[in-house]
């Protein structure tokens, strides 16, 4: 008894708002319908009055006496329209011509008056049903259609009515036509899918005002949603007085009521949003009830997980089958939203997650069958998001260890991922050139799966993240092979250049490669990671060359570039040797050769614009610079800053020579850059080296080797053909010989500066100046000559500003005399060989 009372109270609390809601909506619909009908009525009456007036005018023009025996024809032929009871006259009748109003006869009896419109107690009075006109009893007359003879004045209003009726305005005795009646939706059974019924005017939400839209549309959806949540909370809440069967029964009854109500409304009024919302809510409540039968402790009556799952599948199937009748993507989507929402309140368990997965699979199957792309795409967000939310708010039991937790969650995510992969492939196979939103299923599935996995992965020692990377790699290798075999491949380079990452075989393999790179980073020691990435990038590039796959090629280049930068982080400043060879050398040298290989590989390719498959020739120069930079920094860290200048200077000679031999301007420029860096290091270190070898430790050795290499580069540069100055770099190539020459001169002068001091420095510089001048004449190098002259001028400045003040007398004298002699010698040379000099200067 108590349960009955309780159920009644609960039912009342639940039903009352629903009833109020429905009553409000129906009242609004009825009022609107009445207003429309009234307008129609008034228009008809106005037209009738107009015809009567014209008829009377015709009668007046003829000499028909009987018309005088009667009250004025107006009174006979037409009676004022008297609104019957409960009429609502909205139209302004002032425009209607007035007529005499004897109340003898009621023309209105034959008019479909408002009184004939029955006051609607029908909750679905939206079809505008109008019953047969019911004339007022006091006005009722036996209506016999009477003939109006031509030229004969009708004797009474009935004759007039009959006349007009014969004219087809209002056939007597006929039921007035329904104003704007809508055809019923066909309910013929069909072996195939039935037509979706059109929406009735009453549910044309777009034409309703804002208030009605909120009250009708929004309230509908929100109300059903809240109902479902309320039911779920109710089921989950344990009352001591309610047993599990009672709770389930109440849930089932409620669900069936919603379903029946929705179906009833649909049958009666045709399909509308109200009925669809009720049906959707009913099915989702039923699904939740079926879930609760096994999945919720308070209502658990089914012990077997298999039976519980079977019941869920059964309900889901019914929901799906029912929604198929309408072929409404929105309706089906709403049903699934309700079902997913209902799982929010359930505690997380294997059963609850399996239920979610089953729903997802069902939703995707329907999406694919009916080609509902939006449902498939939004369903992805819904399924992954709801699973994450559940796992975040209701974490799996803490009794689960990390491994079990990973297996539990990852298995579910894997099933979801697989489902979306299969659906995506199916859509792709159906229409490879589709522009629907489902073409983004591949990247969406990848991102959602990755994010969900990372967020739910236990960050503990027992479950390192590279397990996940390994799983992702294996998954995408398999799906990549499947796509290659089963699907056509949009986005492949052979097809077009623009569509990247849309689900082709290469896209999957690229993801697998990315996961592999993460696993490499995690598993290998820090200095060896660069080796792993270099190998991975190289393999991607080489495979992509043969297929050809542009995305994979780009990703391969990207990985190799990242490996280049990785060297600076983990391979430069490291100790350790193996067999006397430093680990730095063992890891960086192979990478240098890799860069050189890729340089020559990409240099033979077509450019992006020229190649139909998207060439990468523009990357070639970058690889040559990568190789040179790595070689330079390797020298710096292997030999130390002291030995770097000669090492780089020798490298500069090699690059300049290679550039000349291969006619490669990149190599030539790299030679210049290496030479300038070498001279910079030499100046910064004062040409000193901390080697234990006394020969190498001497600045003379370091300086002379470096300067000699610079002049060798100058000689090689002098034999180059200048390129066309079509770019800034090409324009700068013309100064290469001068840069080498100047760098050598500066280096030599500085070497003397650090090694010699005082007055001897002035002597040394002046001799060097003379030597540069002579060399400039021999080599026909104007810059050398200017360097010599400049050095001599510097000596003059030094002599007066420094030597005269700081040096002791003997050294001071030596400086002045040496400089003077040098300058005289130079002057003599210019005078003695004036002709030849002029010839050189031409």
């Amino acid at each position, binding site marked *: 008894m108590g349960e009955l009372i309780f159920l009644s109270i609960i039912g009342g609390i639940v039903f009352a708002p629903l009833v109020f809601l429905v009553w409000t909506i129906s009242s609004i619909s009825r009022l609107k319908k009445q207003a429309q009908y009234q307008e129609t009525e008034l228009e008809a009456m106005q037209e009738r009055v107009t015809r009567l007036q014209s008829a009377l005018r015709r009668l007046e023009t003829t000499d028909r006496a009987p018309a005088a025996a009667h009250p004025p024809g107006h009174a006979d032929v037409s009676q004022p329209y008297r609104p019957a009871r409960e009429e609502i006259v909205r139209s302004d009748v002032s425009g209607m011509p007035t007529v005499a109003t004897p109340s003898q006869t009621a023309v209105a009896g034959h008019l479909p008056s408002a009184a004939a419109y029955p006051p609607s107690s029908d909750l679905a009075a939206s079809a505008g049903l109008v019953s047969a006109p019911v004339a007022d009893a006091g006005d009722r007359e036996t209506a016999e259609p009477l003939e109006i003879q031509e030229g004969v004045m009708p004797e009474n209003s009935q004759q007039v009515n009959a006349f007009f009726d014969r004219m087809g305005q209002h056939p007597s005795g006929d039921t007035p036509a329904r104003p704007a009646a809508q055809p019923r939706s066909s309910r013929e059974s069909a072996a195939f899918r039935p037509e979706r019924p059109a929406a009735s005017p009453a549910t044309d939400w777009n034409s309703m005002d804002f208030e009605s839209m909120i009250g009708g549309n929004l309230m509908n959806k929100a109300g059903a949603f809240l109902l479902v949540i309320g039911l779920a909370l109710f089921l989950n809440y344990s009352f001591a007085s309610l047993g599990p069967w009672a709770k389930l029964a109440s849930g089932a009854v409620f669900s069936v009521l919603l379903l029946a109500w929705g179906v009833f409304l649909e049958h009666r009024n045709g399909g509308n949003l109200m009925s669809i919302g009720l049906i959707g809510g009913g099915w989702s409540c039923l699904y939740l009830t079926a879930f609760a039968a096994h999945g919720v402790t308070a209502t658990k009556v089914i012990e077997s997980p298999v039976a519980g799952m079977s019941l869920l599948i059964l309900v889901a199937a019914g929901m799906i089958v029912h929604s198929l009748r309408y072929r409404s993507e929105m309706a089906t989507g709403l049903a699934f939203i309700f079902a997913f929402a209902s799982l929010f309140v359930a505690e997380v368990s294997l059963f609850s997650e399996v239920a979610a997965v089953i729903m997802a699979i069902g939703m995707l199957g329907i999406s694919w069958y009916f080609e509902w792309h939006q449902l498939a795409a939004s369903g992805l967000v819904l399924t992954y998001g709801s699973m994450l939310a559940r796992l975040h708010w209701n974490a799996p039991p803490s009794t689960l260890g990390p491994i079990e937790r990973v297996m539990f969650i990852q298995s579910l995510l894997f099933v979801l991922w697989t489902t979306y992969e299969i659906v995506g492939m199916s859509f792709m196979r159906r229409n490879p050139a589709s522009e629907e939103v489902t073409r983004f299923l591949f990247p969406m599935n990848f991102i959602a799966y990755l994010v969900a996995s990372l967020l739910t992965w236990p960050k503990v020692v027992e479950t390192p993240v590279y397990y996940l990377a390994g799983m992702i790699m294996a998954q995408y290798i398999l799906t990549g092979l499947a796509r290659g075999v089963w699907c056509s491949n949009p986005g492949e380079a052979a097809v077009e250049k623009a569509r990247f990452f849309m689900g082709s075989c290469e896209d999957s393999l690229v993801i697998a490669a990315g996961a592999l790179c993460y696993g490499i980073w995690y598993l290998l020691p820090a200095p060896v990671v660069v080796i792993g990435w270099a190998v991975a990038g190289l393999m991607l590039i080489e495979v992509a060359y043969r297929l050809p796959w542009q995305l994979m090629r780009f990703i391969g280049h990207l990985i190799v570039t990242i490996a280049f930068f990785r060297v600076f982080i983990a391979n430069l400043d490291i100790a*350790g*040797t*193996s067999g006397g060879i430093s680990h730095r050398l063992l890891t960086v040298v*192979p990478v240098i050769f890799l860069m050189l290989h890729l340089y020559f590989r990409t240099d033979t390719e077509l450019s992006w614009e020229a190649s139909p498959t998207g060439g990468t020739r523009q990357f070639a120069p970058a690889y040559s610079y990568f190789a040179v930079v790595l070689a330079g920094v390797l020298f710096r860290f292997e030999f130390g800053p002291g030995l770097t200048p000669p090492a780089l200077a020798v490298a500069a000679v090699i690059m300049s020579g290679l550039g000349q031999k291969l006619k490669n301007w990149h190599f030539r420029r790299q030679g210049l850059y290496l030479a300038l860096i070498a001279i910079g290091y030499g100046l*910064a270190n004062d040409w000193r080296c901390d080697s234990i070898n006394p020969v190498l430790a001497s600045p003379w050795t370091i300086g002379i080797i470096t300067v000699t290499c610079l002049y060798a580069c100058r000689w090689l540069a002098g034999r180059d053909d200048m390129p066309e100055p079509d770019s800034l770099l090409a324009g700068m190539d013309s100064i290469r010989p001068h840069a080498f020459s100047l760098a050598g001169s500066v280096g030599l002068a500085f070497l003397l500066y650090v090694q010699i001091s005082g007055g001897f420095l002035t002597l040394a510089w002046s001799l060097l100046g003379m030597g540069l001048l002579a060399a400039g004449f021999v080599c026909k190098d104007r810059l050398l000559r200017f360097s010599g002259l400049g050095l001599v001028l510097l000596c003059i400045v030094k002599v007066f500003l420094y030597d005269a003040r700081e040096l002791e007398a003997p050294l001071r004298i030596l400086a002045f005399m040496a400089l003077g002699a040098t300058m005289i010698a130079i002057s003599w040379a210019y005078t003695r060989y004036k002709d030849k000099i002029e010839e050189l200067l031409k």
Partner: protein
Amino acid sequence: MKPVYSLIVVLIMLVVGGIIVMQGEPEEKVGLSGVMELVGDAQRTALKPAMVVTRVSAAEEMELGARLAGHMSFGYGRDQESEDFKKTEAYIKRLGRSLLGSISRKEINYDFHLIDAEMVNAFALPGGQIFVFRGLVDFVESEAELASILGHEITHVDARHCIESFQAEMAAEKVAGTVLGDDRWLAGMAMRFASRIIQGGYRQYQEFEADARGLKFSADAGYDPSAAEKVMQRLGEKYQEETPPKKAADPVAELAVAVKTAAGSYFRSHPPTPDRVERLRQQASQHTGNRKFYIGKDNLKQRLTRAQKEIPEEFASTR
């Protein structure tokens, strides 16, 4: 060469190199220290012309050093006038002078001082003024170790590390003197502040250079090269430098930690001790052969240099 052949060669090189390195237990050191060294190299090169132009004479440098040394006051200890203190200071002076055979700037007159304080430290001023704390003398275990430290400080003078810190300031005062008069010290202070920032990038390089050249000075003087590594190791253990961070969760986090560490280390005056120890070990290993080097444990205890008393048992062969 056909691409496939070069591909095979490159793959073999990569794989073989990786395997060899993995077998050798590589050092797990991830950071931007290598990049910071390169940045420091660039800074030194860029500042070189300015340093050359503002270079002061040896006489000026020694005058500056003497003036700065006169301001040094550490609250003289109670043992300042004791025989032991004087004996130790004399020992320091003799040992220091014995290391000057390989210096490049012969015009500098070096002067060594002992400070009666417990601090385990030593420092150098321009013009050859070298200061050693008594705590350091007590800390070292052999004459070779003390020689490596003295050689380190001598290098700071010989390589102009000390004077270059003041060159910019002195030049600014000279130039600003014509305008600011007696207030030219303001310009000097501003330039000092600026030079600290600019030169901060290669201060650690200067420490590495001082370690290396100081080891060379002591090795050239016949002292055990491995002593530098040992004393540096003990200094690091004594002052417990920060432990290396754990492995990051992903490559991006690893890079973020590296950048953060590099930014924080820019103004650090000394490089991490493990790095210094490793480099000293590598440099010491270059001294191969049958040459014998002197250790001098008893010499330290007796405060008698090797030149005063050479003990045969104090010789050690190189590795």
